[in-house]
C-alpha cells in the first residue's frame, strides 16, 4: 500500500494501481470517455488529465493522463487545478470542432463552459471519437471482430475489409459501451443487424420475447458449457417457472400439514 494526496486528502492505494481508479474510488468526478474497468487503459481521450507533483520537485509539476499513471508513495495529485481545467477545456473544444453534432460531446463541453468551438468545425464529421473502447472490449470478450483501420484522417473503426465480420456474435458490447453512442444497430422482426451482419435473435418459447442472438448463445454454450435450454426462455418466464416449481413443493407441504 502507498500513501498519496489527492486534492489535499491523504488516500491509500495499491502499488501500481492507476490514478483514475483511486480518484473514482474517492468519488471525485473526473471525466473520461475511453476508460472502462474491464479493459486495459488506452489514454485516447486525454480528458482524465491531472496535475501531479512531489514534495522534492520544488514546485515543478507535471500533467499526466490519470488512467495510465501509476500511483506511488508521496505523490500529490490535483484533479481540478486551474491549469487542468484549462487543458480539459481545450480538449473538449477540439472534440467539439471534430464532432459538432455529437450530443454527448456537446453536453460535456457545456459542463466546461464551451458552447461553440474556437477551432474550425469539421462539417461532414461523424460521432466516432476513435477512442478504441469498442475494439478493446471486443478483444476482451474474445471475438476480435472489429479494429481500427487506416491512419490519420482516414482512420476509422471497422470490421475486416469493411465487410460483415465473420467473428462477430452480435453481443452488442461495443454498441452498449460506446461513449458517443456512435455504433448503430437495429433489432426488428426477430433479427438483429450490426456491422452489416444479420443475426437471428432467440425467441422465448413462453412469451415470444426476443433475447440474445443465437450465435452468441451458441458461443456461450460451447465456450462456457452452459446448456442451450437455459437460453430458450426469457428471464421473466424463468422466474414464473421457478415460482411454479416452488409453489408445487410448498403446496405438498401444506397438504401434508393439514
Amino acid at each position, binding site marked *: 500500500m502507498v500513501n498519496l494526496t489527492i486534492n489535499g486528502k491523504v488516500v491509500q492505494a495499491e502499488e501500481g494501481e492507476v490514478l483514475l481508479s483511486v480518484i*473514482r474510488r474517492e468519488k471525485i468526478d473526473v471525466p473520461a470517455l475511453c476508460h472502462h474497468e474491464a479493459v486495459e487503459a488506452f489514454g485516447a481521450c486525454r480528458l482524465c488529465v491531472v496535475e501531479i507533483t512531489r514534495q522534492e520537485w520544488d514546485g515543478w509539476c507535471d500533467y499526466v493522463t490519470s488512467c495510465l499513471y501509476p500511483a506511488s508513495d508521496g505523490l500529490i495529485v490535483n484533479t481540478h487545478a486551474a491549469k487542468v481545467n484549462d487543458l480539459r477545456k481545450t480538449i473538449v473544444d477540439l472534440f467539439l470542432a471534430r464532432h459538432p453534432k455529437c450530443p454527448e460531446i456537446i453536453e460535456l463541453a457545456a459542463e466546461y463552459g464551451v458552447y461553440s468551438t474556437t477551432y474550425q468545425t469539421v462539417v461532414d464529421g461523424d460521432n466516432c471519437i476513435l477512442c478504441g473502447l469498442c475494439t478493446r472490449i471486443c478483444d476482451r470478450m474474445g471475438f476480435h471482430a472489429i479494429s481500427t483501420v487506416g491512419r490519420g484522417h482516414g482512420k476509422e473503426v471497422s470490421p475486416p475489409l469493411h465487410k460483415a465480420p465473420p467473428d462477430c456474435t452480435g453481443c452488442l458490447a461495443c454498441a452498449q*459501451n460506446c461513449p458517443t453512442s456512435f455504433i448503430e444497430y437495429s433489432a426488428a422482426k426477430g433479427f438483429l443487424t450490426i456491422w452489416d451482419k444479420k443475426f437471428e435473435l432467440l425467441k422465448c418459447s413462453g412469451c415470444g420475447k426476443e433475447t440474445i442472438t443465437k450465435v*452468441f448463445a451458441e458461443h456461450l454454450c460451447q465456450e462456457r458449457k452452459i446448456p442451450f435450454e437455459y437460453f430458450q426462455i426469457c428471464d421473466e418466464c424463468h422466474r414464473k417457472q*421457478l415460482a411454479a416449481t416452488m409453489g408445487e413443493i410448498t403446496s405438498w407441504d*401444506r397438504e401434508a400439514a393439514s
Partner: protein
Amino acid sequence: MKNRFIVNPDLCTGCRTCELACSFTHAIEGLRGQTRIYPLDGGFKDLWIPVVCLQCDDAACVKSCLVDALRRNSETGAIDLNQEVCVKCMACVAACPFGCSVVDQQHKLVVKCDLCGGDPACAHFCPTKALKWNPIEPQTRKVAV
C-alpha cells in the same frame, strides 16, 4: 459467511413490501432501482413465492460472464456484479435458469441480488418473516455416524 438468507413461501402473503424495500435500497441518485426480488403467485391459490437469486454454487451467470464481472463475495456469500467491469452484453440475463439477473431499464444496467452487501433490506421489512437473514449457529447436535 455468518448468516443465511431464508425464504419461506408458506409465510408469504404477497404484500410486495420486499419489492419496495429492494427498489428503494438500490436507488441511484434518488431514482428507484429495479427490484431484485419478485413475489409471484406461481399459479397457486393463496400461495406466493418470493423469487430471488439463489446464489448458486456453480452459477450459470458466473460461467456466462466473458469479462469476469461476476464474482462470489467471500464475506456475504453472494455473487456480486461489478458494475464498473460489466459490459452489458446481457449474457447473464439470458443464461440464468431462474431469471434472477435482470435489466434495470431506467438506469441502463444489469442488476442482480447482492444481499445488500451483507444486510438484506427485504428481510428487515418482511412483516410475516417469510424472508429471514439468520445467523448460522454452530452445529450442536452430533450427527450419527
